[in-house]
């Protein structure tokens, strides 16, 4: 007789969630990525494992370019290195014609090592060392000046090199949808940015040829870009009017939302996330409306990161433990004192009876072999968690814990999952943006990363970390160099 897959005997008190199965929606199974079976990927490369779809990367950047080219042909995309600077990922975008947008000397070096010439690099960010600025100037990078001290450093460098330096000025704008990112650049609305442009023109050999504004991140309101575009266009025209020369490019930064879902976001991403066409319409429509007729339109630069890479990234991970998590108010000890949360409430209506907190007032929970140290973005977003095999039983609200020995390591407070067993694989998605670059080595090694090419071939693009990657940079003082067993006298007696 063929035996059935095991399903543990469980009982759950019916809550709002389980009483209405529709509330949980349908969680599709994700057995394969771009036709490559999840089980095979885990079998060959081990887990956890980040997987990127090259086809998805290329489809996204092409869709973005199509949308903007349709309304504003002079648009150029720059790949935001900080969003994901795995070399293979960067090179896909460079192959698709993207410039590099970097925010540190390290990222600048990475872009150069990826074969990007300096003049195709936008050098952004609030901290650029004197040496980094010199290299960027010498190599013709598009420096976006952020603050007074950088202006002064570049002015001195221009004198030293006895030449003009063309640059962009970063500004911030209140779009009304976000906390104003006033950490960066100069205020475009109170005259500060215009004064800086005039001051540079009159007192230095710095020539402002670009205006840069990055309004924020995960902008679900495409209209914010109309507000930002309005401000940067008016600034560019005012600068020209003041005799500071022509602004040749407007850099509207990034911030386009991916189809991730914020914590507390009511609408699903399919409904809440604007498309590239929406952003293009708001942004480019504003520029074209305000730019004087007869004058060449400025080039539009965009540094979109998240919206291009997030959905191309998956994390494959396995269940290592299955738990029942006691929900608040479900503690039998508390129930004994009449404080059993919902049971206590029911008791007031005579329905408490023998029902203790333990009886069914629990939630399924699973522990995965990956934690929030490699899923940094779970602090803000709730990725979907898909079973990698057809579920044997119906969906249940399930808490998804990571593998760290830290109570904060919760990947999803409540995901809809079937009854899971140890060894079952799940796919977490989307995770392509920021998780690689912001992941930290903590408690366990960072996992390998593979990319599936459009032909379905799987390429290792970052190997799993090993002890040497962690300990290599360390040094042990000579007096601690001797290894061996702990000295007997140092042992603590427990008897």
């Amino acid at each position, binding site marked *: 007789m063929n035996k059935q897959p*095991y399903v543990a*005997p*469980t*009982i759950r008190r019916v809550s709002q969630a389980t009483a209405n199965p529709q509330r949980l929606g349908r969680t599709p199974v994700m057995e394969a990525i771009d036709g490559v079976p999840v089980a095979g990927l885990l079998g060959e490369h081990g887990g956890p494992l980040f997987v990127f779809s090259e086809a998805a990367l290329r489809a996204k950047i092409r869709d973005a370019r199509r949308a903007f080219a349709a309304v504003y042909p002079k648009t150029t995309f720059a790949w935001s290195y900080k969003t994901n600077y795995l070399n293979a990922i960067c090179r896909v975008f460079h192959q698709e014609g993207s410039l590099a947008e970097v925010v540190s000397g390290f990222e600048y070096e990475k872009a150069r090592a990826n074969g990007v010439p300096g003049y195709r690099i936008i050098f952004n960010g609030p901290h650029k060392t004197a040496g980094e600025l010199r290299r960027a100037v010498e190599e013709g990078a598009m420096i976006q000046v952020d603050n007074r001290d950088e202006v002064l450093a570049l002015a001195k460098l221009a004198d030293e090199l006895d030449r003009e330096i063309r640059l962009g000025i970063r500004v911030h704008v209140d779009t009304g949808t976000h906390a104003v990112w006033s950490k960066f650049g100069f205020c475009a609305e109170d005259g500060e940015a215009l004064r800086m442009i005039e001051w540079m023109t009159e007192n230095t050999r710095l020539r402002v040829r670009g205006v840069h504004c990055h309004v924020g991140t995960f902008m679900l309101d495409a209209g914010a870009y109309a507000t930002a575009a309005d401000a940067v266009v008016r600034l560019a025209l005012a600068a020209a009017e003041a005799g500071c020369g022509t602004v040749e490019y407007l850099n509207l930064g990034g911030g386009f939302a991916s189809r991730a879902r914020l914590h507390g976001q009511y609408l699903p991403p399919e409904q809440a996330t604007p498309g590239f066409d929406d952003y293009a319409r708001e942004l480019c429509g504003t520029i074209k409306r305000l730019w004087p007729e007869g004058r060449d339109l400025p080039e539009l630069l965009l540094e979109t990161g998240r919206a291009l890479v997030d959905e191309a990234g998956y994390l494959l991970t396995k269940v290592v433990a299955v738990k029942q998590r006691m929900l608040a108010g479900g503690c039998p000890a508390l129930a004994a004192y009449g404080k059993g949360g919902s049971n206590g409430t029911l008791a007031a209506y005579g329905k408490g009876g023998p029902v203790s907190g333990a*009886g*069914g007032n629990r939630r399924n929970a699973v522990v995965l072999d990956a934690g929030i140290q490699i899923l940094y973005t779970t602090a803000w977003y709730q990725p979907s968690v898909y079973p990698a095999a057809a579920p044997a039983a119906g969906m249940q609200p399930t808490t998804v814990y990571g593998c760290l020995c830290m109570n904060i390591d919760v990947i999803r407070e409540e995901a809809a999952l079937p009854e899971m067993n140890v060894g079952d694989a799940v796919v977490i998605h989307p995770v392509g943006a920021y998780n690689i670059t912001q992941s930290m080595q903590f408690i366990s090694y960072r996992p390998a990363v593979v990319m599936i090419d459009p032909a379905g071939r799987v390429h290792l693009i970052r190997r799993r970390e090993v002890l040497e990657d962690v300990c290599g940079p360390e040094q042990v003082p000579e007096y601690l160099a001797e290894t061996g067993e702990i000295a007997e006298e140092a042992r603590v007696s427990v008897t």
Partner: protein
Amino acid sequence: MDPNPTRLDDLMLNDRGFVFDPNTGESYQLSTTGLACLRSLQHGTTAAGVLAGILEAQEVDPLTARWDLDAFFWEIKQLGWL
């Protein structure tokens, strides 16, 4: 009609594992195995018999099945059903 119905007999179950306990007004959801176990108990099967049924029908080692079944019995005892 049973003159001395137990709490277990009072329970109303459907085929999708939904349970209503008329003594408390509470509702519960059972897994497929949980439903099979509860029905077996209602039909008078012993704990050992329930365990044997799981082992016979499902791909599971005896220790795991025993662990989970004991946990299940513990929970329904807390509910006053056993």
